[in-house]
């Protein structure tokens, strides 16, 4: 996987962030275009390409979610699979509730705060689930675990949208 290669890393889902940062800084320095100002145009071009590749690699790998998405894609798994129907049902209901609250009065605020807590909890669960699954997949490369990662990412996306909407709503109300 080229982002891992660029940073001299084994393709693993769980990574040490300090190590990642250090590799990124070291290599960025090494390939910095300023150091190639007197080089041939091919070398200049190579330094620019490496620099932008390192930036992309670092940005993608430092966040667990984007890292896992990248990893799945490179493993030939499409991200955009159908979401599980039970989840959609739930997300839809929550959105409906949110919409009702939005039209409502200040008394809805309490419910919004509860919803915020609930979604924050769900998001935290998804994140800790992800790190468990990362370790498990790195241990023994089991395709079923990759599927579970995909399902978790999927769920996480919907929950984080809901949370964003709830928080937007809470901010709007407190601003008034």
């Amino acid at each position: 996987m080229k982002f891992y290669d660029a940073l001299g890393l084994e393709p693993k889902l769980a990574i040490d962030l300090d190590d990642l940062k250090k590799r990124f800084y070291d290599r960025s320095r090494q390939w910095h275009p300023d150091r190639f100002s007197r080089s041939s145009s091919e070398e200049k071009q190579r330094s620019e390409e490496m620099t932008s590749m390192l930036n992309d690699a670092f940005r993608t790998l430092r966040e667990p979610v984007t890292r896992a998405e990248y990893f799945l894609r490179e493993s030939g798994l499409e991200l955009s699979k159908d979401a599980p129907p039970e989840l959609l049902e739930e997300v839809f209901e929550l959105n409906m509730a949110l919409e009702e609250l939005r039209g409502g009065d200040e008394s809805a605020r309490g419910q919004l705060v509860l919803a915020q807590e609930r979604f924050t909890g769900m998001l935290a669960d998804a994140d800790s689930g992800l790190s468990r699954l990362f370790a498990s997949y790195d241990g023994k490369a089991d395709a079923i675990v990759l599927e579970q990662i995909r399902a978790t990412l999927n769920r996480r996306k919907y929950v984080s949208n809901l949370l964003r909407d709830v928080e937007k709503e809470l901010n709007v109300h407190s601003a008034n």
Partner: protein
Amino acid sequence: MAYSDKVLDHYNNPRNVGSFDKKDPNVGTGMVGAPECGDVMKLQVKVNPATGIIEDAKFKTFGCGSAIASSSLATEWLRGKTVDEALAIKNTDIVNELSLPPVKIHCSVLAEDAIKAAIDDYKKKSENVGVESKAHA
């Protein structure tokens, strides 16, 4: 990126927003989602069982403007069509009608999937009704 006039029109005046009782045997419900963006769409058809014609369609979408416009347009197109004609609606028809840009194609796919899911649901229900009435006879 600017939305086309048609998208804006459907977005500002969405047609047929709402829902039917999903337990009604003549109603088919399709609930779909797009994991890339986390948007959800529910689309329902109400079919006349004698003629197989879709008499009414409703939707509710929590998502981007293009998804809302796509589903709104879909409900307009569905009314008066037979179930089989409805299945012939393609996301590319929606893309063309609304002039959706490439990054918004998945929003129209969502609408096509919702139509298929709703019709599927209706068909399953009507088959079950058939089986039951036979069992009672």
